[in-house]
């Protein structure tokens, strides 16, 4: 079993990283093909960093991800608190079921259904264009919301009611008791909800494809339109840059983590004694 597991794991990593290796190698191709390697050059990196289109798309992607994740986090946290305190059982389960829909529904269907809604509303109010940055934003918030709620809700359950009841007995208003007692205890859930929303939004292509309007191209959409054309190694260069950045940071994080764990470990033992 052990040897077998090890072999499987090694094969798995070869499989996972073969395309990455290919991508990195071909990003240094001096030719314009992604199939025939002609020689080493960094011309595609120059092209990449000179392309205002790519840089704008990158900026747009980050703007969209940050705004949509922030709004989703705010709305989702409020909703989670609301759901937690809901009395009606059937309403609670109805809301939870609805919350699950965007997570379980295929992205294509979510995208198409939102597009139909936006176009319908656009017609209704006679807008000259029914899809825009705002529809894209709404779509992103919509698919981000469930992840925030599902991250916050378990934390609320952990905290329970007793703390806030105690705070209120001691003279806090419900709002005060929320910010003083509940909030610090659920903040980790909120942060992880935000991060999940942020990453999902960064990477989303399918839903953006259907709900995006004029003139706000995100990176995934740009990549899509590029792979529809004659693909040049510049998109490999782009991915290589992202790959290296993420890799370096993950390594850094791991080192920092390992160090802090080493420091904490003796402390823990002492505490236990």
């Amino acid at each position, binding site marked *: 079993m052990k040897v077998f597991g090890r072999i499987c794991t090694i094969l798995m990593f070869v499989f996972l990283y073969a395309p990455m290796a290919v991508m990195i190698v071909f990003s240094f191709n001096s*030719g*314009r*093909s*992604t*199939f*025939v390697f002609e020689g080493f050059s960094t011309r595609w990196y120059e*092209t990449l*960093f*000179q*392309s*205002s*289109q790519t*840089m704008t798309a*990158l*900026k747009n992607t*980050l703007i969209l991800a940050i705004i949509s994740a922030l709004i989703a986090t705010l709305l989702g946290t409020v909703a989670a608190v609301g759901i937690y305190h809901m009395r009606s059982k059937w309403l609670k389960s109805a809301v939870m079921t609805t919350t699950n829909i965007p997570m379980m529904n295929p992205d294509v269907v979510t995208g198409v259904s939102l*597009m139909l809604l*936006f*176009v319908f509303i*656009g*017609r209704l109010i006679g*807008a*000259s*264009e*029914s*899809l825009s940055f705002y529809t894209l934003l709404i779509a992103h918030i919509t698919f981000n919301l469930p992840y925030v709620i599902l991250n916050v809700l378990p934390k609320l359950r952990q905290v329970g009611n007793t703390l806030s009841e105690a705070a209120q007995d001691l003279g806090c208003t419900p709002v005060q008791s929320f910010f003083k007692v509940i909030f610090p205890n659920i903040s*980790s859930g909120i*942060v*992880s909800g935000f*991060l999940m929303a*942020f*990453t999902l939004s960064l990477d989303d292509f399918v839903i953006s494809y259907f709900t995006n*309007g*004029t*003139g*706000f*191209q995100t990176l995934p959409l740009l990549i899509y*339109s590029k792979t*529809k*054309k*004659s*693909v*040049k190694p510049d998109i490999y260069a782009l991915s290589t*840059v*992202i790959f290296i*950045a*993420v890799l370096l*940071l*993950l390594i*850094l*994080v791991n080192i*920092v*983590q390992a160090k*802090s764990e080493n420091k904490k470990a003796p402390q823990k033992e002492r505490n236990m004694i």
Partner: protein
Amino acid sequence: MKKRLISLFALLIAVCCVFTACGAPDVKSDTDGNSISGIAASLESKYTTSLAGTTLNVFNWGEYISDGSDDSMDVIAEFEELTGIQVNYDNFESNETMYSKLQSGAVSYDIIIPSDYMIERMISEDLLQKLDFSKIPNYKFIDEKYKNLYFDENNEYSVPYNVGMVGLIYNTTIVTEEVDSWEIMWDEKYADQILTFNNSRDAFAIAQFMLGQDLNSTNKEDWDKAADLLKEQTPLLQARVMDEVFNKMEGGNAAIAPYYAGDFLTMYDANEDLAFVYPKEGTNIFVDSICVPKNAQNYDAAMLFINFLLEPEVGLANAEYICYASPNTAVVNHEDYSLKGNEILYPDDEAVANTQYFHDIDPEIRSYYEKLWEEILRS
């Protein structure tokens, strides 16, 4: 868990920083505009406008404008530089997708570049607006041959951008025989090496030429026969493609593909084993023209942009980059034009048999052939 999340967050921020750090100097170099130099000076006064700061939305085919790669001119950036108008540039894949998006009111653009038959349809459905030719003095460069065409008989709605014909591209290392007919696309020898168009009209046209039909037939039986022929072909196909064809053919991953003549020249630059022929049964000729949709929001900037595209230097840059035949006499006669008299782009009239334009067909036939097309896709 918490720690991991925090580190993840740190990571995200750092990624952002890396990118903005990379991005910052480049944005600057864009506005420096030292790459623009030559023509900017000569056009400066002409394109100084009170529209600076407004936005122009352009909807065009992929790979259909000189974009600054390989030392070409970045037409959009030049225009932005000259006028101060910000251009949003999006691509579409086929006339039909473009039409669907505009017609439903999902998006609005100030400039679109559809093909002939689609322009005819959009005019008849009142989706385009008339152009103000007094603001497009460069219209004088357009070849008389491409004025008063059937889709815009009085030259009110459109300005020709590119002209082209469809031909057969093949890889001579795989196809060693003499090629002169569309028939080869049904040859079982080349099974799984054949590509075809991923849009209904271009794909149908090939079958229609094989059957000796009129491309704009209103007889359903004709369409049925053409559809049958295409279904027969399906098992032999590697894929239905549009611009993916560049990679497939340049990389030698497919042997035969019908595509637009100008694009062959681009592919040939990358792979000299490729060859091109206008098949004897006939072929489709098309004109892609610049138009302004009814719901455009920056009409004046659109006029300025159209005029800019017709500037001899800009037209030349586009003609060199896109490699399609240009309807612009100032380009065709330009001394620096490397494709002047190219026999693929500008063939003699006798060299190409039976060229036909697409026309807009009445909606009933249209939905009929679209239905057939779906069957073909599923076959």
